[in-house]
């Protein structure tokens, strides 16, 4: 691999479900280090499937996903180690309900990165500090608001010191007044140079933060470009129609 090749290189990715549904119908895409790629599109267009393929929560039917020079689709790949570098934030938070916030943050670093409890807790507390939730360290997830849960979910992923962060509609399950606090954390993360792939319906976030926007429809990337191009000069009729509905 040459130096200027993309960090994530996706070629002709396809995902077919039984019954002939083509969730992904040949996706090609490059994602570079430090990029914030926002994926938009109507529901059922395959954006979540694509995102979830990147860390193999969905197994693609065919195609290649080359991360840092390694094709992760195929036999004999240490997928668990790959996932440690590529953490995910979910729509429904998926915090571990039987553990305190602090334990949610320290579990994976202690078990997988073999950090000592003290080391993991220091790191966890500084992350909690960053998102303004240090005082909730000993609370259980059920005692938190949706916005708080999602901020915890983000720092739980960050505690693994990933190289890429994947966001699967992180604000879709939130009350409107809590969306801002989560987006704020994501913006800060983007400004620090984290490589991010974000599936979202927050067009404002896409305009402001994205370095590149992908528009997906029917399992394909129909149009891509910098946000000002996509939102101000959409070319493809499907994108024009989509934007006229959501903006």
């Amino acid at each position: 691999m040459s130096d200027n090749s993309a960090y994530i290189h996706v070629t002709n990715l396809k995902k077919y479900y039984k019954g002939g549904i083509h969730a992904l119908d040949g996706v090609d895409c490059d994602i570079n280090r430090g990029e914030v790629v926002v994926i938009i599109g109507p529901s059922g267009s395959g954006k979540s499937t694509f995102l979830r393929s990147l860390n193999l929560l969905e197994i693609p039917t065919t195609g290649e996903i080359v991360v840092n020079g390694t094709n992760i689709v195929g036999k004999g790949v240490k997928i668990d180690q790959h996932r440690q570098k590529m953490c995910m934030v979910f729509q429904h938070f998926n915090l571990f309900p039987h553990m305190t916030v602090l334990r949610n943050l320290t579990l994976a670093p202690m078990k997988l990165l073999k950090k000592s409890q003290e080391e993991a807790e220091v790191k966890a507390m500084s992350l909690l500090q960053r998102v303004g939730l240090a005082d909730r360290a000993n609370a259980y997830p059920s005692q938190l608001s949706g916005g708080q849960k999602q901020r915890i979910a983000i720092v739980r992923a960050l505690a693994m010191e990933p190289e890429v962060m994947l966001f699967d509609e992180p604000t879709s399950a939130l009350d409107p007044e809590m969306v801002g606090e989560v987006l704020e954390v994501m913006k800060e993360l983007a400004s620090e140079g984290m490589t991010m792939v974000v599936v979202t319906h927050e067009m404002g976030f896409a305009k402001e933060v994205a370095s590149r926007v992908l528009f997906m429809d029917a399992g394909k990337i129909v149009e891509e470009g910098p946000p000002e191009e996509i939102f101000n000069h959409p070319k493809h009729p499907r994108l024009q129609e989509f934007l006229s509905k959501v903006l």
Partner: protein
Amino acid sequence: MVLTNSFWDTAPPWLIKMKEDFILNFVDAGRWKWLVEGLGNTLLITLFALLIGLVIGVVIAAVRSTYDKNRESMEMQKGFGYYLLKIVNGICNLYLTVIRGTPVVVQLLIMYFIVFASSRDSLMVAIIAFGINSGAYVAEILRGGIMSIDNGQFEAGRSLGFNYVQTMIHIIIPQVFKNVLPTLCNEFIVLLKETSVAGYVGIVDLTKAGDLIRGRTFSAFMPLIAVALIYLAMVVILTALVSALERRLRKSER
């Protein structure tokens, strides 16, 4: 001495009859010892059958839920592991169908008179028979518990980099345990009471002991009610212990 004498002198006739019945059934010829021996055997069978059942249940639930959870990803690769798991899963299904589809008394008799026909250690045979029976129910309780956990919990664990087994151990099983505890406790209570058919293969368990006394004294009330009360007391104590444990585990849902 004087006091007791005067009490029984003035006691109503039904009470005196009960006292005589009590002495006849439990004190005379040391018949209470039968109940103690029977209780001991009942507890022995229940305890060891419980352990066997838990081991079988955990193994089978692990196989079946692993197969269900990973079927899609393994069908893509169709390696040796996939076929092995498929065969083992099929064997587990057969076991569940047979055990849950036949009465436990029949299973006990088959074990005693056919499978272990050469062994006359009926206590051991009963422990194995009840253990194998209980394992089927425990397996389905655990599998139900595993499948009831939101798939997002699996995905969250896997996306952090835990492998399947680590996700199960650190994230899923602790939640499953809390959820299935009442059902599991119920299965143990059922098991305790089901051992009352052990008399079929010549074991003097609690029920059989009461029945033996009845056969000797021709007085049914005292021994049978005593047996019932002992079962009841054990179940009440077991239930109380489990609710105490449940309350401790529910801390995270304040």
